[in-house]
């Protein structure tokens, strides 16, 4: 058996993700946080496909794949069975944004309603990447995908805003809901540790830029994740029992700095600038900053 021999890497090299893949880093960090005492249930998507082309697998822990839509139901069954047997393994679901925001919502809602002791991680690369970049409920307003191309009807690209999935799960009564980003690996690891050690259904949504689907150089994956935070388009926060208790503060940059670096927003700059759409995106960042209170005020910054 090709045991995991690479130091303490539970998520092994040799997986087939694109070079620079954000979700691949999230998978590694996830297992750093959980350690060996875990069972992973994985929805269909890039992470499942690149990590487990039969007979290979990058997972050094028990791992099960079922379907695109039912990962939370599978995890519910595993958790119920472990509980009955008095076993201590943590049960963690991992799914992409398509699996989480769209097709898996029914099973996730059921699992959270029943109150299973599971942690659900959504790695958010903001579209259906594995099938060739289709729009999902997590695709940001203004992004171009193959199913939201800029055209006569929607010159700005995707006409709809990103769905507020953390709020939906917090409304189910989840004791711990958090957002994270691979730009801050230690923060993500700590949030996973907190979630798996919190009884009941917990949710973490981790921002994982996809160089292939967003259109940027593979070396810039972390830089892109950090820019999303620095512009206020992604906010790292924690919710305990439905209330926001902590949000990462930033000295905000204009959203243009983030948009101009990615091909999925190129139509906002060429052939002609779409100042109207860029202003709408800036308004989304401003609303985020207001809602979560993330702006570092001048006074604070001079401290």
């Amino acid at each position, binding site marked *: *058996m*090709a*045991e*995991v*021999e*690479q*130091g303490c*890497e539970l*998520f*092994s*090299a*040799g*997986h*087939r*993700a694109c*070079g*620079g*893949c*954000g979700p*691949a*880093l999230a998978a*590694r960090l996830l297992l750093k946080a959980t350690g060996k005492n875990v069972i992973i249930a994985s929805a269909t998507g890039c992470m499942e496909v690149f*990590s*487990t082309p*039969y*007979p*290979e*697998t*990058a*997972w*050094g*822990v028990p791992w099960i794949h079922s379907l695109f839509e039912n990962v939370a139901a599978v995890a519910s069954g595993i958790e119920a069975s472990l509980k009955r047997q008095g076993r201590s393994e943590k049960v963690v679901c991992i799914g992409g944004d398509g699996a989480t925001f769209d097709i898996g919502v029914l099973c996730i809602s059921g699992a959270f309603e029943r109150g299973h002791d599971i942690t659900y991680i959504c790695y958010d690369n903001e579209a259906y990447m594995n099938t060739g970049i289709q729009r999902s409920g997590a695709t940001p307003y203004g992004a171009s995908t193959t199913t939201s191309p800029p055209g006569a009807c929607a010159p700005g690209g995707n006409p709809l805003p990103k769905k507020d999935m953390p709020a939906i799960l917090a409304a189910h009564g989840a004791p711990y809901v958090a957002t994270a980003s*691979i730009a801050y*690996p230690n923060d993500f690891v700590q949030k996973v540790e907190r979630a798996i050690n919190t009884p009941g259904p917990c949710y973490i949504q981790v921002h994982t830029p996809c160089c292939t689907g967003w259109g940027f*150089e*593979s*070396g*810039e*994956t*972390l*830089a892109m994740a950090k820019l999303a935070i620095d512009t206020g388009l992604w906010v790292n926060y924690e919710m305990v029992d439905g209330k926001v208790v902590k949000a990462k503060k930033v000295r905000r940059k204009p959203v243009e700095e983030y948009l101009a670096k990615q091909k999925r927003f190129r139509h906002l700059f060429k052939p002609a600038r779409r100042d109207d759409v860029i202003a709408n995106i800036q308004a989304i960042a401003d609303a985020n900053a207001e809602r979560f209170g993330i702006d570092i005020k001048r006074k604070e910054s001079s401290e």
Partner: protein
Amino acid sequence: MALRVGCAAPPGRALDNKTGAWRVFKPVFDPETCSRCGMCAMVCPEGCVHETEEGTFEPDLDYCKGCGICEEVCPKKSIRMEKEEK
């Protein structure tokens, strides 16, 4: 009788797949300027950057895909991407 459905693979079997063959650029690490912060090892999506006995870091070129993330995050600019000679 146990009913066997689906397929199973041994843990970590992906190591059979040497993704280093995909590389176009390779990272070259300079141990002289390295501050030993460990960021490169933390963020490599392949998990293929390892600490040496001296406490500096180097990539496992059997698996490194040459993505350049380590070069981008290194605070000391100790990593440089070089066109791979094949």
